[in-house]
């Protein structure tokens, strides 16, 4: 297959993609890095000057940073727990024979296609609103005091909304993995007298392990960058109760016009994302060899 002609052609064909991605990665990254060492505010143009690590110092010692970091971790971990456990249970359920599998599957997958702004607004207004939301109606019907979800438990509410969006993703991937499980293995185990639980633990779970890892890593990448849901529900508040790292940097850069500080935050976010990315890449890389 590989001749000099085809190799030369291959290099030519791949170069536009490589060059574009290279530019896309390096130029903004270099600029972010550069800005992060400047005192640079869009409101006072022409006043840029080199201030070394001051931006980092400010950003990392800002109490909002710790709040945001904690919120980011809680948001990611919370959603992961809900979606992985829920997704596994759903996948096991949907893998069973029942009537109307196709329709249920379609219903379960649907939330994934709802754009983040829509799902956040629908949940915020039509369900979680303390006066007119369906939950408020439900609470009242049960004789309880309506609960103002986004004011009292903003982060938990956002975790709920985001989980609803990502549960289909986890379910779909785990279901696909489950369906690729060799039925003969399960039947052999059944013949050997293994009860359902030990079949699940010893055969299904190891088979799902890889898919679960993929779900965790990919969701983490997306969950670290949750933005629209916060923007349209709580605006990060009250206070910093639902501000994550992405939202904090957004506020600093585009609301306070502090380019330097925002860039320092950006660099921190990149470093954190890279730690996750390294694990994900290893996973996928291994798969590539198989």
């Amino acid at each position: 297959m590989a001749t000099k002609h085809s190799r030369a052609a291959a290099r030519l064909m791949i170069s536009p993609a490589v060059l574009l991605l290279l530019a896309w990665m390096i130029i903004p990254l270099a600029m972010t890095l550069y800005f992060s060492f400047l005192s640079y505010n869009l409101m006072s143009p022409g006043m840029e000057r080199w201030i070394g690590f001051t931006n980092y110092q400010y950003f990392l010692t800002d109490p909002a940073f710790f709040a945001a970091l904690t919120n980011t971790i809680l948001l990611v971990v919370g959603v992961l727990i809900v979606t992985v456990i829920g997704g596994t249970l759903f996948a096991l359920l949907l893998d069973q024979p029942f009537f109307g599998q196709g329709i249920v599957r379609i219903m379960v997958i649907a939330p994934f296609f709802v754009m983040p702004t829509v799902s956040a607004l629908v949940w915020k207004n039509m369900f979680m609103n303390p006066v007119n939301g369906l939950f408020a109606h439900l609470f009242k019907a049960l004789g309880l005091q309506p609960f103002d979800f986004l004011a009292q438990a903003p982060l938990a509410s956002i975790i709920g909304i985001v989980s609803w969006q990502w549960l289909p993703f986890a379910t779909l991937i785990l279901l696909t993995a489950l369906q690729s499980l060799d039925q003969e293995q399960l039947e052999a185990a059944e013949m050997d007298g293994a009860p359902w639980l030990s079949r699940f633990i010893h055969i299904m779970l190891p088979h799902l392990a890889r898919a679960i890892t993929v779900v965790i890593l990919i969701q983490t990448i997306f969950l670290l960058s949750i933005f629209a849901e916060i923007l349209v529900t709580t605006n990060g508040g009250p206070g910093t109760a639902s501000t994550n790292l992405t939202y904090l940097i957004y506020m600093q850069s585009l609301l306070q016009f502090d380019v330097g500080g925002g860039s320092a935050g950006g660099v921190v976010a990149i470093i954190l994302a890279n730690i996750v990315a390294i694990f994900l890449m290893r996973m996928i890389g291994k798969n590539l060899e198989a």
Partner: protein
Amino acid sequence: MARAVSTRRKVFTTALAWGLGLAIFFPIFWTVLTSFKTEAEAIADPPLWVNFHWTLENYVTVQERSDYFRHFWNSVVISVGSTLVGLIIAVPAAWAMAFVPGKRTKDVLMWMLSTKMLPPVGVLVPLYLIFRNLGLLDTRTGLVIVLTLINLPIIIWMLYTYFKEIPVDILEAARMDGAGLRNEILYVLTPMAVPGIASTLLLNIILAWNEAFWTLNLTAAKAAPLTAFIASYSSPEGLFYAKLSAASTMAIAPILIMGWFSQKQLVRGLTFGAVK
């Protein structure tokens, strides 16, 4: 393997699966239902299920007040445009990696993927400034560029996994039959890969359609797609549930329909082939 399952168990599973499925789907169902109510009916307590005055008024209002169609058209141009541009760049690249693999092919693929891991907020500031200086803020061209680059790794990866499934023999046969590279790709590879290319197209339109970081941060009014259109409903005055529902229904309906057709490919595309 088909195996006998007791009817009772199947009925039980059916009830459970439908119950949970309906619960997951309920917010979407409720949104669509509410979009046909009047504003007063939309917040009625207890909630109204069917016994209300079905109306299309909200849709008319939303179109008149927020110019739905302009946003819709922006979404179409941005998502379809970025996907098509992405495909044009990705097809040759995926061909090269799938059929002329070299020692570094794997590294290149992994590196491409790594660009996808870059948190968007990390490059928000420079991109915003670059766009401002180039006059690309709030333009559809600008968003097509950004979304093409964001989704390019996924497009290449998906195509790569599809191309890998095409037997090399057939491309070699084309070469023996006197086809040059251009003809090989045009007459043999592309038609054979149509199903794969179509699913890649579909998935990436969906991803671009729902993208809500860059579309919110780089547009204001002119080029704002549906994500931004909906965000404008986050702090309105007065009763607006029915109108919000109508707007939401219009924003998600096209993509929901497309999404249902691409479930299978979704798994492959989003896991970069790690789960098939």
